């Protein structure tokens, strides 16, 4: 397979995807869940017939709950999202709706939401930093024909590429499907990050090995061979991981469904970038 030769095509595809993500992040933005913004979420199952959204609105309209988002789920279930409420208001809502069975209730104060957000940002920032340092260290012996720090840099570019496109996709989903980014997404994004770095490492590892064996005058050729040698591994690993994630997405229940979706998208994008983008970038870096 000729990857390096057609690298302009792959760069173009990636740039289009990145611009699309940028667009959706700017215009629609990420829809943050109550974990980060504070607010409450209530999942109830009506014992008799389900009330319509309008009936629910009317019944609880005098409680001054501000904007309420009502979403029917399952056969008789409803998911209510609103501002943070206290326990008394919570009980009053249940009363007014005729004592349905409550499956889930979460109410998170804005202060705690903000703390969680801070913590998440810290966790992501710190792991990025440490991973970059680790790659720079792991590739310290490879310095010809490109410097070892360039591998680290390319791995980071690939990683941002993967995460940015996944985020863009979720901004899109948030706008059209009302899917929110909650705390589990932090874990999902960190996993994508790890996966992306892992892929870069596997390919660089091949390049590192081949450079020692062959004449590195033809760097393009060496990189292209390395990709082809790692191709089956990349695809097989992506496939096996996708098997499990797809099973979780389709069978795993509501609460981890979108967690799995984030990973699925991240892994597809990550596999694409590790095969087509990482290597092209390394070659491009050498020509500079």
């Amino acid at each position, binding site marked *: 397979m000729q990857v390096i030769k057609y690298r302009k095509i792959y760069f173009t595809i990636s740039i289009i995807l990145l611009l699309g993500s940028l667009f959706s992040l700017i215009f629609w933005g990420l829809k943050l869940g109550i974990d980060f913004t504070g607010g409450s979420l209530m999942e109830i199952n009506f014992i008799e017939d389900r009330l319509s959204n309008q009936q629910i609105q009317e019944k609880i309209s005098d409680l001054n709950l501000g904007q309420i988002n009502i979403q029917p789920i399952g056969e008789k279930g409803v998911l209510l999202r609103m501002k943070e409420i206290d326990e008394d208001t919570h009980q009053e809502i249940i009363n007014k709706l005729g004592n349905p069975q409550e499956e*889930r209730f979460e109410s998170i104060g804005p202060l705690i939401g903000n703390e969680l957000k801070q913590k998440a940002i810290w*966790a992501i920032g710190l792991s990025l930093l440490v991973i970059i340092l680790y790659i720079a260290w792991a590739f310290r012996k490879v310095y010809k024909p490109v410097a070892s720090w360039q591998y680290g840099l390319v791995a980071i570019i690939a990683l941002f590429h993967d995460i940015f496109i996944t985020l863009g996709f979720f901004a899109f989903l948030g706008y059209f499907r009302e899917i929110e980014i909650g705390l589990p997404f932090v874990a999902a994004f960190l996993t994508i990050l790890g996966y992306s770095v892992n892929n870069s490492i596997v390919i660089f590892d091949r390049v590192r090995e081949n450079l020692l064996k062959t004449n590195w005058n033809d760097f393009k050729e060496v990189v292209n061979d390395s990709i082809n040698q790692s191709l089956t591994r990349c695809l097989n690993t992506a496939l096996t991981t996708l098997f499990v994630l797809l099973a979780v997405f389709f069978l795993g229940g509501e609460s981890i469904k979108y967690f799995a979706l984030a990973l699925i998208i991240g892994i597809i994008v990550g596999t694409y970038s590790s095969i087509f983008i990482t290597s092209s970038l390394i070659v491009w870096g050498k020509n500079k």
Partner: protein
Amino acid sequence: MSIFKRNSEKSGYKRGRRNIYLTILSIFLIGIFAAFLNYPTAWNNGVNWLNNKVGFTVMPHFWERPFKLGLDLQGGTHLVYEADLSNIASEDYMDSMQGVRDVIERRINLFGVAEPVVQINKVGSHYRLIVELAGVKDAHQAIEMIGQTPSLDFREERDKKESEDILIRQQEIIDKMQQGVELTSEEQQILMEDANFIPTTLTGRYLKRAELQFDQQTYQSQVSLEFDSEGSKIFEELTRKNVGKRIAIYLDGSPISAPTVQEAISGGKAQITGNFSLDEAKELVQRLNAGALPVPINLVNQQTIGASLGKISLNKSLEAGILGFLAILLFIIFYYRLPGLIASFSLLIYVVLVLAVFKIIPVTLTLSGIAGFILSIGMAVDANVLIFERFKEEFKSGKSLGGSIDEGFNRAWPAIRDGNISTIITCIILFIFATGLVKGFALTLGIGVLISMFSAIVITKTFFRWFVGRKIEEWKKIWG
């Protein structure tokens, strides 16, 4: 790594073979032990059958240890209270928080929840109390009980005649009840009444502080109380009125001590002497301070999952995990043939081992924890795939089976190591920085990745080496 060292000497061949058998044996023994740990019922049923046959206990039961499930999988409620400490001196913050925790713990124990978690959590200048009640059916009732402000009050003794009267009346009502007669609300009221003591106006509101002290002569531990100025007046009057009688101290409605008043006490200080052990006295001080320091707490965060939803989530994610796992096994067997089959065995042992470790530690399994575990299976497969790809290359280039195995493992190792280390770094950071949900994910993924390295390098490789020098080595096609 020394395990990659190639053992090409002819003399070492026999010893190498014996080592392989020993390693395989120990892998299987560990695997079987872990499997019984995960599912002790299988062992215990067998043992029961055997014991019944023989007539006496031949073999003991296996250690039964349940998986620890998180709130999202077994249902329950997670509450966060913020304490308002604005009226407390800052050096007493921790003391009053401990007091609040103890009171709430006692309230929860009354509620009858298995293994409740009550933790003090300090974030910046915020002091919080985290309460986790697993499997609680009525979260609302639990919240109401926790929310009550701790109550401490003093009661004076009734005179003998009065308490006897009440006791007699109560006995009558109990007799009536036993005959199945419906009680009037008035009768129920009487039944609830305390026959020995009547409440007074002196409550924990007037208590300034309680302290642990020791008697100068006997070194007996005692508890000293100090009232504020208003409380001192009430206390003085109360003791004057009740010289020679008992005054009972009630906490949350139940008596903790009933000392006899020796003389009227002015100055608002009192000692509770009794046959306390040091620990009891300490606990009492903490309780009294808790009752005396009405730190208002405010529910700021609530997450409640119904038991049925938890069960559905658990079953669904288990189903998804098993199905995904089977798909992986089929895929690698189909694609890599015999090596794939070998890897399937080592992956099975891997899963059993990880689950056993989850049980032993124990790791609280949540939905995100299960997701982390499922992902670690992916990492374990990746290690095997990396090795097989390298192995195939070597084997196709005409190397012997043993040589290709060693070469394949050697060449795949740097990539496996670097990839796994970066994942473990992420897990450690997440575990330290993140809370609840994400923490569970980091823990299971981290444990999984650690064990996966062992599974790929030791288990898969040992199984592989077993085939070296056997007839099947010649059958090139089966090796992929």
